[in-house]
């Protein structure tokens, strides 16, 4: 199958910059803001958004990682997945505004797992969701607050997000 590039490096950068501004706007500043990326690529995106926030309002980009493997509802349908590290910033998440960051929002099940994982870690004031790509086909009542690009797709298409830090190239393609 042939892959078609939908977002290039510059598009991704612009989308992340816009998301960063939207996060600051909706949070009315950067107070008590914690970005938690969902491994693997969500962590990279969270770090990048954190760096942009930091450049707009210094000291505002608190970034961590939240692994949801242990909370997934499809563990029994797949070969054993190796979990990734969870890294909660020293301040914890109690009373903070959490922005979950993932690369692709699809069924919503990963986010459901992330919400369960969060409730075991503490009680945030609010939880928001940022996704680079929203491809539709939700199976749960979940929506993103900040979206890089809405990409209506058919269920048998594959969306590939490739990022420099992990894949050596930077693009979003559809296949």
């Amino acid at each position, binding site marked *: 199958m042939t892959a078609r590039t939908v977002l290039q490096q510059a598009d991704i950068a612009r989308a992340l910059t816009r998301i960063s501004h939207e996060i600051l706007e909706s949070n009315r500043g950067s107070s008590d803001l914690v970005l938690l990326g969902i491994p693997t690529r969500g962590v990279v995106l969270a770090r990048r958004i954190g760096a942009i926030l930091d450049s707009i309002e210094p000291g505002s980009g608190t970034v961590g990682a939240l692994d949801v493997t*242990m*909370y997934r509802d499809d563990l029994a349908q797949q*070969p*054993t997945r190796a979990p990734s590290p969870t890294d909660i910033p020293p301040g914890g998440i109690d009373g903070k505004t959490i922005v979950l960051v993932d690369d692709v929002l699809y069924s919503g099940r990963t986010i459901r797992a992330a919400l*369960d994982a969060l409730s*075991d870690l503490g009680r945030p004031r609010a939880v928001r969701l940022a996704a680079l790509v929203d491809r539709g086909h939700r199976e749960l009542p979940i929506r993103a607050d900040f979206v890089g690009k809405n990409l209506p797709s058919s269920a048998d298409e594959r969306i590939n997000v490739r990022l420099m830090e992990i894949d050596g190239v930077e693009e979003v393609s559809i296949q």
Partner: protein
Amino acid sequence: MRHLLSTMDVSRDLAISLLDTAEDMADVSTREVKKLPTLRGKTVVNLFFEDSTRTRVSFEVAAKRLSADVINFAAKGSSVSKGESLKDTAQTLAAMGADAVVIRHSASGAPRVLADSGWIDAGIVNAGDGTHEHPTQALLDAFTVRRNLHGSASRGKALDGVRVTIVGDILHSRVARSNVWLLDTLGATVNLVAPATLLPVSTVGWPVTVSYDLDEAVDAAPDVVMMLRIQSERMNAAFFPNAREYARQWGLDDERLARLPAASIVMHPGPMNRGLEISSRAADSAQSTVLEQVANGVSIRMAVLYHLLAGADS
């Protein structure tokens, strides 16, 4: 992973993956809510035909932290003391719907029998069988060594080049056997030190060097000294003249402890015979990892149960 019976079956990749998963499980143990929903609805049976506190409790805590249901089954006070066979016990557990059986048995190979017999469909974890193997102990020992060496940067690393000296009753020790295979798989070199009477008749084919002099081994400055328990329950013959002589020749006493490099760690699988194979000062010193090993045992067993039970049947 279908069963965990022997560290001989554990590949390097699987070993590292288990140790990495245990790192994540250790993080859970430091949280306020020390529980994951991962194995909800699964049943783990602790089938213990031999006495044990730390291993049984450790498996129980591990299973409970993953939200599995735990059934403890001790041979004493069960139908086993009325003469029920392993087969009937296994089939009874199968009928009750056990997803995993953690078994400790005084007969070497009992877990293998359970795994190969077809009596029960559950995943089998060997929690110590006779003088054969105790794989989760070896995994937690490797985990403890790796953490002491690499700290928070442990993920993904093996134990290449680490020099481990195992001292004591090698002959009866399932801990030593499991450790020998796993440490070799992970790239460490192993030196066994024991009186000739407490070594197996032949160590041909074991990836180890053997020596009989603890002082020499201590002066070689190993990274890890692993003391084994003198298992008085298996001492059915005169393996050494008396306890005092054993302690003098093969015990880690204060003087030998002082000669070890400060960076070397002292391990013991417990329970310790203080004053016999290890002096009180050595057991309580900053170099001792005895309590760390117990804490790491829970993380490792969580990782093993996760790999055994969470994925699809392959």
